[in-house]
C-alpha cells in the first residue's frame, strides 16, 4: 500500500475578535490550536469594535503563530503550506491574518491557501470525528451565520436553508442585552437558562412563508422585547432565567425542527442521510447540543458535534479545510485579498 506524504499546514484565523493559529497534519490531526481572545476588551463596548479588533490582531499575531509552532514542536520549515481565513468576517480583522500569512508565505516560499471561514466551521467536524466523511447534513450556527447545509463532498456544499434576518447568535446577543445579561449573549443566556423554565413563556417559532428550511429569528427577538415592554408598563418584574430559557427554547425548537424536517424530506426523495453535524459558535449552546442529539437519535442519525474549543473561531478548523483545498491543488496568489462578504457556496478560488 502506498502511503501518502504527510501534509502539515500552519493555519491563521483573524476574522472577528479571536487571533488564532494552528498546526494541523493531514487535515485531521491537530498539533496545536492557539487562540488569543479579545473578548474582555470588546465586552467594555457591548460588542466587537472592528477597529479595536484589528489593532489587537496586529499586536498579537506573531506571538500566536510562534506559540502554535512551538506547541506543535514544528518550525516553519516543516510546513507544506500557510493557510489563512480570507472571508467572510470583519474586513479590517481579516486583513491582518491575510497580510501576515502572505508575509510568512513570501518569506518562506511556501504555498498560500485562502480558506472560507464557514467551510472552516463545518470542517471542525472532521477533526472532532476522524471517521466522518461526506455526505452529511450540517447546521452552521454562529453570530454571523445560520445555514442548513448538505455537505456533498469535501468543498462541495448545497445550502438548503439560511436565515432571512438575524443570525441565531445575533438574536442571543440582542436578547441578552435586553434582559440585562450583557455581552457575549450566547454563553450568558445558556447559563441563565439552566435555572429557568423553558416553557414559562411561549415565544413564537418563526417560519418563513414559502420556504421549507429558511430561518427567521427577528420575530422571536421582537416577541421577547414586546414581552419585556408589557411587563415594564404593568410595573411587573420579569424572571430573567425564565425569559432566557423560554427564548432559548424557541430558537432551539426552530433549529432542531427545520433540521429534522430536512432529513425526513431528503430521505423521502430517496437520499441516504446517516450523519448530522453542527458547527459554529452557537453549536456550543448546551440546550441545542442535547436536544439536537436526542432528535438525531430518534431519526437514526449519527450526531457529530465538535467540542466548544472547535466551535468558537479557531485556526485548527481552517487548517482542516485548507488540507482539502491543498489536496485539490488550490493555491492562492500573493494578491489574495480579504473577502468580508463571502457567502457559503461561493468559492475563494472562483471569485
Amino acid at each position, binding site marked *: 500500500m502506498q502511503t501518502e506524504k504527510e501534509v502539515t499546514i500552519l493555519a491563521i484565523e483573524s476574522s472577528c475578535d479571536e487571533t488564532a493559529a494552528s498546526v494541523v497534519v493531514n487535515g485531521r490531526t491537530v498539533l496545536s490550536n492557539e487562540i488569543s481572545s479579545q473578548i474582555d476588551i470588546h465586552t467594555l*463596548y*457591548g*460588542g466587537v469594535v472592528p477597529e479595536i479588533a484589528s489593532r489587537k490582531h496586529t499586536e498579537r*499575531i506573531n506571538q500566536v503563530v510562534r506559540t502554535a509552532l512551538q506547541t506543535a514542536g514544528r518550525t*516553519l520549515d516543516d510546513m507544506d503550506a500557510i493557510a489563512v481565513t480570507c472571508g467572510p468576517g470583519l474586513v479590517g480583522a481579516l486583513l491582518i491574518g491575510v497580510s*501576515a500569512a502572505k*508575509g510568512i*508565505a513570501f*518569506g518562506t516560499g511556501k504555498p498560500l491557501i485562502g480558506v472560507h471561514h464557514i467551510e472552516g466551521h463545518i470542517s471542525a467536524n472532521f477533526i472532532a470525528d476522524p471517521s466522518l466523511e461526506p455526505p452529511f447534513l450540517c447546521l452552521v450556527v454562529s453570530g454571523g451565520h445560520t445555514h442548513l447545509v448538505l455537505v456533498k463532498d469535501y468543498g462541495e456544499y448545497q445550502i438548503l436553508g439560511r436565515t432571512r434576518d438575524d443570525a441565531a447568535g445575533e438574536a442571543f446577543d440582542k436578547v441578552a442585552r435586553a434582559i440585562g445579561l450583557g455581552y457575549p449573549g450566547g454563553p450568558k443566556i445558556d447559563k441563565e437558562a439552566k435555572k429557568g423554565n423553558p416553557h414559562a413563556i411561549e415565544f413564537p417559532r418563526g417560519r418563513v412563508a414559502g420556504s421549507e428550511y429558511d430561518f427567521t429569528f427577528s420575530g422571536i427577538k421582537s416577541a421577547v422585547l414586546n414581552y419585556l415592554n408589557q411587563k415594564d408598563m404593568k410595573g411587573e418584574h420579569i424572571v430573567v432565567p425564565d425569559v432566557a430559557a423560554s427564548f432559548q427554547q424557541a430558537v432551539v425548537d426552530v433549529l432542531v425542527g427545520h433540521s429534522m424536517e430536512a432529513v425526513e424530506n431528503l430521505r423521502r426523495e430517496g437520499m441516504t442521510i446517516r450523519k448530522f453535524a453542527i458547527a459554529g459558535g452557537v453549536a456550543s449552546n448546551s440546550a441545542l447540543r442535547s436536544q439536537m442529539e436526542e432528535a438525531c437519535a430518534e431519526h437514526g442519525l449519527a450526531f457529530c458535534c465538535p467540542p466548544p474549543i472547535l466551535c468558537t473561531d479557531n485556526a485548527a478548523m481552517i487548517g482542516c479545510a485548507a488540507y482539502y483545498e491543498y489536496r485539490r491543488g488550490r493555491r492562492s496568489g500573493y*494578491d489574495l485579498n480579504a473577502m468580508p462578504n463571502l457567502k457559503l457556496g461561493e468559492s475563494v478560488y472562483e471569485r
Partner: protein
Amino acid sequence: MKILAIEASGQVCGTAVLEDDTLVADYNILYKKTHSQSLVPMMDEVKRMIDLDLETVDAIAVTKGPGSFTGIRIGAATAKGLALALNRPIIPVPTVESIAWNLCGTGSEQVICPIMDARRSQVYTGVYESNQCATAGCGRQTAWQMLTLKDQCVISIEEICSILNCIGSSVIFLGDGVPVYREKIADLMRVPYSFAPAHLSKQRAGSTAALAMQFWREKGDACLVNADDFRPDYLRLSQAERDRAAGVDTSRTVHRD
C-alpha cells in the same frame, strides 16, 4: 546592511531594497487597487527582478504610522509575517518623517512640512530641517542630516501653519494633504512657501529605507524592534475609545462568530 522597506501607510503602496548606500530597488504605485492586492505581488516582483535572496536581508523597515489605519496595518502585518519567517528585526519608521526624508539634501534654507489628511479637520504633520554637518575625519566633506523641529503629530492646519509662521523660514509642503489644504495654506501662511514636485510629494519606499538606514547608523541595534513586539503608532485612538473616554454611549453590536 541590507534593508527591505515596506510602505503602505497612505495612498502609495511601495517596497524598496537598500544595500548600504545603494538603492537597489524602489517600486511605488499610487493606484486604485488595495494595498492588500498590490503589496506582496510588488515585493515578489522586486525579488525576482533583482534576484534577491531574502536570507541576505538584515532588517525589514516599515512605516509605523500615522496614516490610513488599514494601510498601516497591512504594512505592519506583512512586515511582521515576513520578519517572523526570516527571523529578522523590524525598523519602525515614522511616516511623516519618512515623507520629509524625500527632501533631505535639498538645502537648509527652508523647513520641510509634510501634511497628510487626517480627516476630522486635522492633519498628520511635523516640521523638519535638512542641513549639513561635518563628517568626522574628512576636511571639506559634509553629510546631510535632518533635524526635527516638530515631531509628528495630529493637529489642525491652522495650528501647523501658525507654528511655521513662528519659525519664520520659508516652507516646502508635501504629502497627500496638499491638494486638500492648498487654499487654507494660502490663507494662513505669512512666510514664503512652496509645494514639492510630483516625484517627491508622496510616500516613497526608498525614503523609508533610507531613513531606516539613517536610524541604523545613528542608533545601531537600538533602532531594531523584535517583530513580535512591533506595534503601529496611529497617533489616534479608535472612534469607540474616544467616545468611551468622552462618556458617550458606546453600546453597539457587530456580528460575532
